[in-house]
């Protein structure tokens, strides 16, 4: 009896390490002990990892191969606030906002598993609102770069022409992900609020939405490091 239970549902304690991998794959059953939606989200995020890495790698390639100077991101993205010239200010604020939203999302997932309907929904709405403000700042940044600095995908006054195409491609695709995430989170949060997941009996959808949102934050960590700071 105990053995049967073990075979059908291996617990965290039953096996550890590589042995557990062999067990999970060799038992003629579902290999990953997670809800299917979560496994599928991971597959999607994995494919997205490849997409973003292709963008960042092509950016690396054009930046290495150009013979012109690369525009100094620290200067390009500087803001003048109350007469003080602060480098990279907007980007720093955007980074902090995204991290804050990742924190509220992690808390939402946590409250979701406690089946705390109201707090989960509130935290998810907060996450979506922070995401929206991020997109708003990005729109401001793009406008400033296009209208004031004259950056175009085919050239810019500051240096290497590839700066514009890399910038619009990478931050544009990331911004698209944030925008999609805001819609996704809002939809799930509305369902949470209406008690959909209480009736379903599980809040795993909240965790799956959380995976997506944390991934968007994760991608920004790399963009921040390689595009803005490098």
């Amino acid at each position, binding site marked *: 009896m105990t053995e049967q239970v073990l075979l059908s549902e291996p617990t965290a304690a039953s096996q550890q*390490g590589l042995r557990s991998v062999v067990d999970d794959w060799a038992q003629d059953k579902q290999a990953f002990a997670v809800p299917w939606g979560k*496994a599928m989200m991971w597959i999607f995020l994995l494919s997205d990892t490849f997409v973003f890495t292709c963008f960042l790698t092509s950016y690396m390639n054009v930046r290495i191969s150009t013979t012109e100077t690369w525009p100094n991101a620290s200067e390009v993205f500087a803001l003048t606030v109350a007469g003080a010239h602060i480098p990279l200010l907007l980007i720093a604020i955007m980074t902090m906002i995204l991290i804050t939203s990742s924190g509220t999302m992690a808390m939402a997932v946590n409250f979701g598993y406690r089946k705390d309907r109201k707090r989960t929904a509130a935290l998810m709405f907060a996450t979506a609102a922070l995401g929206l403000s991020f997109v708003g700042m990005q729109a401001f940044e793009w406008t400033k770069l296009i209208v004031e600095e004259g950056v175009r995908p085919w050239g810019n006054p500051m240096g290497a022409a590839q700066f514009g195409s890399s910038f619009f491609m990478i931050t544009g695709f990331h911004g698209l992900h944030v925008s999609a995430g805001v819609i996704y989170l809002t939809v799930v949060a509305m369902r949470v609020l209406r008690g959909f997941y209480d009736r379903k009996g599980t809040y795993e959808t909240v965790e799956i939405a*959380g995976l997506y949102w944390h991934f968007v934050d994760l991608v920004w*960590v790399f963009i921040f*490091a390689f595009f803005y700071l490098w």
Partner: protein
Amino acid sequence: MDDAVHTRHEAAHAEGQQQHPIRIYLYIWALLFVFSAFSYMVDYFQLQGALRWTLIIIFMLLKASFIVAIFMHVAWERMALKLAILTPPLTLLVLIALMAIEGDYTFLTRLAAFVK
């Protein structure tokens, strides 16, 4: 009391659930802020050269690992899933290495052929 918490923890995992003390999230959250502030400081104080790149990479990897391990719960997943998630991106290192070499080659070719 601590034992009871631990047992509940284990039970939650057996059901494939992720329930952890809120304290862990708040702690990681704070750490992410600190690391972000540090990486911003790298630019603010205009550190240059190898020191700049090393610090950027360190803070980036620290942030990324904490997000993946704690916020995305990978630290608590079974190893089969961990391997499925973490090993495929390693192939990207090959792409990055190849493109770095290629970029270098293009740069040298341009220097030799186009730059007077």
